[in-house]
């Protein structure tokens, strides 16, 4: 054995490959790249990638449950006649326009489970300091987090739409003709679901950001969404009896009903008769967009003030 092979006394074995500290000479990207890096990480985090298996359970199960009905319909689609499928709603089948209306609870649970994850973790473990001491600004941080949750929700919402579309195309006598027929009906799902995803994400993060504790944020979210569904409809019902002229406007403040009614505008279908008939679906679109802006402002103002 030569002297060279013998480990030098006092130097740990790990140092054999130690080339010493090397400076980084490469390109340093700026603010937008930082924002993009956070967006990607945030989206991965929502779906539990790079986290333990248990973190993947909630998002995938909830997204799966939301898409489940569409899959069942796809599985049995051969049993339906063309006539039944075109009737859609009346036959009790799912269409692009009524899917969220019936199964929104899973989307809400997805928000309750994952929105606190997006904003509470960094506050509770004080990771925010590390972000704010980099090129990323406070407002950038808030908006990137919002965009990532909205994107995750958009995925959740669009998967069953795609499944429904596949089902309809496969059942057509000629697939190309069927696709051409179905596409105009399916495409409004994209802007409609974008609005729903933005709305749910803005409300969820705007509220969650005020609690560093996940559990409190989740309870707060659930309370807000469910109570804001119930309370305006009570007042509206009372108002309808008493002949109040203003009470129907309250329907615009319901988060889920409001967003669902707004989607009707994109699909060009009539409003659900249980909603105030005095309002058109365009009013709900305006209210939903305003809602997104209000809650995004609430979220941003939280991060403007939060101490790092």
């Amino acid at each position, binding site marked *: 054995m030569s002297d060279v092979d013998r480990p030098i006394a006092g130097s740990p074995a*790990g140092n054999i490959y*130690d080339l*010493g*500290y*090397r*400076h*980084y000479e*490469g*390109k*340093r*990207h*700026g*603010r937008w*790249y*930082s924002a993009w*890096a*956070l967006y990607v*990480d945030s989206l991965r985090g929502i779906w539990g990638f*790079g*986290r*333990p298996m248990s*973190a993947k359970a909630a998002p995938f199960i909830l997204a799966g449950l939301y898409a489940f009905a569409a899959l069942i319909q796809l599985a049995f689609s051969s049993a339906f006649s063309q006539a039944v499928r075109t009737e859609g709603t009346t036959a009790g089948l799912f269409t692009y326009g009524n899917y969220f209306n019936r199964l929104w609870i899973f989307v809400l649970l997805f928000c309750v489970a994952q929105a606190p994850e997006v904003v509470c*973790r*960094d506050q509770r*473990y*004080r*990771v925010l*300091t*590390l*972000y*704010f*001491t*980099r*090129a*990323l*600004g406070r407002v950038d941080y808030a908006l990137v987090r919002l965009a990532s949750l909205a994107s995750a929700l958009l995925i959740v919402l669009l998967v069953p739409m795609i499944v429904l579309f596949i089902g309809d195309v496969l059942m057509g006598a000629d697939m190309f003709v069927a696709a051409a027929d179905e596409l105009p009906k399916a495409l409004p799902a994209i802007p409609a679901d974008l609005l729903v995803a933005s709305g749910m994400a803005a409300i969820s993060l705007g509220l969650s950001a005020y609690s560093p504790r996940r559990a409190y944020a989740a309870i707060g979210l659930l309370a807000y969404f469910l109570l804001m569904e119930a309370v305006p409809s009570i007042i509206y019902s009372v108002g309808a009896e008493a002949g109040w002229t203003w009470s129907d406007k309250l329907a615009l403040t319901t988060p889920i009903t409001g967003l669902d009614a707004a989607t009707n505008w994109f699909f060009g279908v009539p409003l659900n008769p249980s909603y105030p008939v005095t309002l058109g679906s365009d009013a709900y679109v305006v209210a939903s967009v305003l809602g997104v802006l209000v809650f995004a402002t609430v979220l941003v103002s939280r991060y403007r003030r939060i101490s*790092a």
Partner: protein
Amino acid sequence: MALIEASGLTKHYGQVKALEKLDLAVEPGIIGLVGANGAGKSTLLKILLGLLPPTSGRVSVLGMDAVTQARDIRQVVGYMPEHDCLPPDVGATEFVTHMARVSGLSRTAARERTAEVLRHVGLYEERYRQIGGYSTGMKQRVKLAQALVHDPMLLLLDEPTNGLDPTGRDEMLDLIKRTGSDFGISVVMASHLLGEIEQVCGYLLAIDAGHLLQSAPISTFTQRTAVLAVEVEEGADLLAEVLARRGFKTRQDATRVLLALEDEALYDAIRDSVADLGLALVRIQQERGRLEDIFREAAPIAGGVQ
């Protein structure tokens, strides 16, 4: 280019005066920022990062204004906060890579730098495990790694040895020293322990209740009280006596004779005296004066610096 320059830097939180008219001009190197708890160390670091706006006064870091060019400063500065700042549910590699990307490094560069930096701070097999299961020492290493991963020009460390056991403390200090001397990265290290500053830093900034107490190279403190310790096997008392007769200031400490090193002739005197007395000389060692002693006589710090 000066590392940090400040003039009339003042920060008030309502009635509380955290920093009061601070004037600084610090050159690159390893700088110790010392002061009792609540003296304004963390506030100063946060102002340097542009996280807090100063109430009045001007401050620049690496020639950039901390208020108007905060974003540019943060690109080239690494910060290790005093408090915990790591999410528990990801591995060190995953987290540090992410932080590297947020600092503007491309995906490949981020991976390479993460692997290198984690090795430098001494995290090996455990780097894929979740941070939640790490010891305090390992967490401190990850915190340092995320501050170093984008190869900053300046590293701001707030109480980097917080919560570490004596071994971990020494390892962390050694790491900081290497970062400053071998990697060529300037370091500002805030601590309330003078001993740590003495061990690592070349320059000392002392603040107390928001006022600047001292700003000078550490050597100016230690030179003033350079002490030569002469250790002999026996007969230290004789040696002390002989040297005292020759006109040197001596003090005996068990088998050692401590001498004030004021004159080069001392070395010859020691040699001659030891030879004349026929003593067994063990070692002659120059001791640095204890910084805290000097500190206490120079300016007593209210609140008690340890």
